[in-house]
């Protein structure tokens, strides 16, 4: 990394191989990873998130009971055989919470990824092309932002029905303008930089400049946005289910579990609400912890 000065020291250290260079690149990437991994918030967040991912993938093996099947007592408080108790249908809450992970993890990340992809493309064009396209798109973005997410979601789900595809589509659509705004401002700042001008001086085409030159440089905010969005997606899906516009039953998704059971809290049957609620919170917190770690490393590098 030291500067080799031409005047007195004519490049004697200059002949290391290209392989070493590739190695260095890998090291740099590893270094970023290492920095992220070292953060306690990342470790905690990742651990929690991984637990839920495992539940989502192998839920049917892990769940002690059939999450949809009815057995035993209704509303029985936590015991050794039902550590999270049973709900008002007599179903094992633990099994339902484990099974619920799949719904959330099927929907939230996909919705977030789609939203981020849409937002990146839109934001890229807005920030780079500017002019009338940006003005028009900005107004549309702004009008979406001024709407309560949940309301739009409700409206769309009422209109289109509540299948997983619709929920994913709705959340992704709602995230697109939000992400676009972030990407736009990153791209705006980025296109002020001279390398963009230098690419123009080289005769590069606009798509090349946008997607090959600028895009990699705004990957930091995009990665941050993605992690943050996953958290919001979990939250949004839960809220939509609570309001009756989530994934359709019998999916034991956490939001509908809370929605189905929250009125039993007053009877003292707190467990059937508490555990799915905590599941939502823990996953959102976990994703946010990861986002925090990613953000601070991305922003400091």
């Amino acid at each position, binding site marked *: 990394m030291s500067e080799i000065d031409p005047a007195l020291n004519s490049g004697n250290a200059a002949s290391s191989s290209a392989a070493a260079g590739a190695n260095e690149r890998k090291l740099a990437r590893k270094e970023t990873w290492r920095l992220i991994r070292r953060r306690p918030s990342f470790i905690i967040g990742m651990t929690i998130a991984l637990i839920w991912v495992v539940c989502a993938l192998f839920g049917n093996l892990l769940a002690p009971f059939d999450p949809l099947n009815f057995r035993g007592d*209704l509303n029985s408080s936590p015991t050794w055989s039902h550590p999270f108790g049973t709900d008002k249908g007599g179903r094992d809450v633990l099994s339902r919470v484990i099974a619920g992970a799949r719904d959330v993890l099927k929907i939230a990340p996909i919705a977030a990824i789609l939203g981020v992809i849409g937002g990146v493309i839109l934001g890229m064009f807005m920030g780079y092309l500017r002019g009338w396209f940006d003005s028009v798109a900005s107004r549309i973005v702004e009008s979406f932002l001024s709407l309560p997410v949940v309301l739009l979601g409700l409206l769309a789900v009422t209109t289109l*029905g*509540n299948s997983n595809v619709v929920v994913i589509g709705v959340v992704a659509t709602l995230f697109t303008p939000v992400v676009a705004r972030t990407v736009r401002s990153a791209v705006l700042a980025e296109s002020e930089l001279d390398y963009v001008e230098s690419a123009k001086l080289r005769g590069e085409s606009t798509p090349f400049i946008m997607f090959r030159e600028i895009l990699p440089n705004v990957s930091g905010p995009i990665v941050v946005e993605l992690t943050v969005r996953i958290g919001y997606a979990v939250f949004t899906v839960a809220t939509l289910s609570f309001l009756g516009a989530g994934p*359709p*039953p*019998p999916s034991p998704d956490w939001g509908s579990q809370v929605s189905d059971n929250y*009125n039993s809290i007053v009877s003292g049957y707190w467990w059937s609400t508490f555990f799915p609620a905590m599941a939502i919170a823990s996953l959102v917190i976990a994703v946010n912890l990861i986002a925090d770690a990613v953000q601070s490393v991305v922003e400091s590098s």
Partner: protein
Amino acid sequence: SACGGDDDTSAPAVTAGGDDAPAATDAPVPSGGIQQGGTMRIASQRPGSPLDPVAMDNIGSYTPVVQSFEYLCGKGEGAALAPMLAESWSPNADGSVWTFILRQGVKWHTGGPFTSADVVASLGRLAGANLGASITPDSVKALDDFTVEVTLLNADGQFPYLLSPYNPQASITPADYELGTLFDQRPDGTGAFILESFDLATGANYTANKDWWGGVPYLDRLEIVFSDDNATQINGLLGDQVEAVIQFAVSDADALFSSDAVTVESTRGAGHRQIWFNVREGMFSGDNGHKIREAVAIGIDRSKLIEQVLQGRGDIGNDHPIAPAYEFFDASLPQRERDIERAKALLEEAGVPGLAVTMYAPDLQEIALLAEVVQSQLKDIGMDITLGVESTATFYDRWCLVYDSTVEPTGCDGGADFGIVDYGNRGTPDRYLVAAYATGEWNSAHYNSPEFNEAVKVYQATVDLASRKEAIKLVQKIAHDDIPYVIPYFYHTLTAYKNNVQGIVTTGLGHYYCGKAGFTA
């Protein structure tokens, strides 16, 4: 929502009266313990449509209106009628002309006297609407200030039920009450409570009508507090913000059963859930279809369903719409029991072992839960059911398939071969039998059996209990054997109030009267 299909405009609400006893409503009898004074707050569903007494179509709207507007006939003991604005009524020999003797001395809230002119005008308005099938505007004649004669288009021995709370749109409004006027614009009734303010967002407030013909109400004030779901209604009761919750689903009532401060009344009724099959075409039709239907009928475990879905608060169903709560119910028909082996065998015979099929259901009250339990129970007989549980709006939209204004509605046929739909409590099973189970607009099973229709006709023609009991036997049996639908249970409706509340009269349709209600010490 408190009354099954009544809570949504697009729900298959069936509101008609019959002359037979519905479920007994154990309304507390006003006792000497009631004190004068106090404000009663009752949690109710929010009105779903404008408070047009003639056009309103949901429980949320009936409730505020009936506190002020009354009917000619009121609710009596059990399913019987009692005098209200009419002191007595009588038919001619064949039941085609009815004469109503009106109560004298009744005053409108604005002070004018109630006379036969008001009744003539009210019924005239109804002739263009809800009572169109029974009367025309010319059918109603005032014989004098307090006598009205109604000539029916077709003879009907049970006509007064159509002028009672069982037909909520039939309330009597002032003579000059224009069609389309909303109750909150002109709350000028004869009832026990005078509307003071109405706010769709929060609720309706009333003061007692000191000039009420039934006497001075105990309560000074009545407040109806609107909310959107049973959960908040029940929370309100537990949180001391209302004194009563009328008719709610058992699935939300956990908290009430365990509370000492609250009395919960469980009322047997005829409200039920119907698991329908399309028997006209598709896999559920024909002989093979019958086998599958029977497999489903004996594949489910009804008592367990009642236990898990209703926490035991329901009467077992036997795949016909006659509830055990009806006086004339025939108990001799053998109850269908679960038989997994036979169900499997039937599926095998039908050539569809491990049948995979989608079952549609609205996400209403306990129905989603019911669907899930049915799904899991039928797994035992090898059926693989996919659930299509949809929001009520989506469900009924699809169910009724009338989306545009270019076609005349053809009724609601379910739009699917297999599903669950809700039926609210009725005073008589007539409307179920006619509208939903034969050729009416709610026949999702497309069931059309001449035999059954004939049996229903015979039943309807009966005038006394004994013959009715006899007639219903066949109705029950045909439905039970044909299995166009599975009826797993008849749910009980619940009413809860603070221990010191007495005298609220509930109608079984979700609305209630508080003229004689009050607080004990």
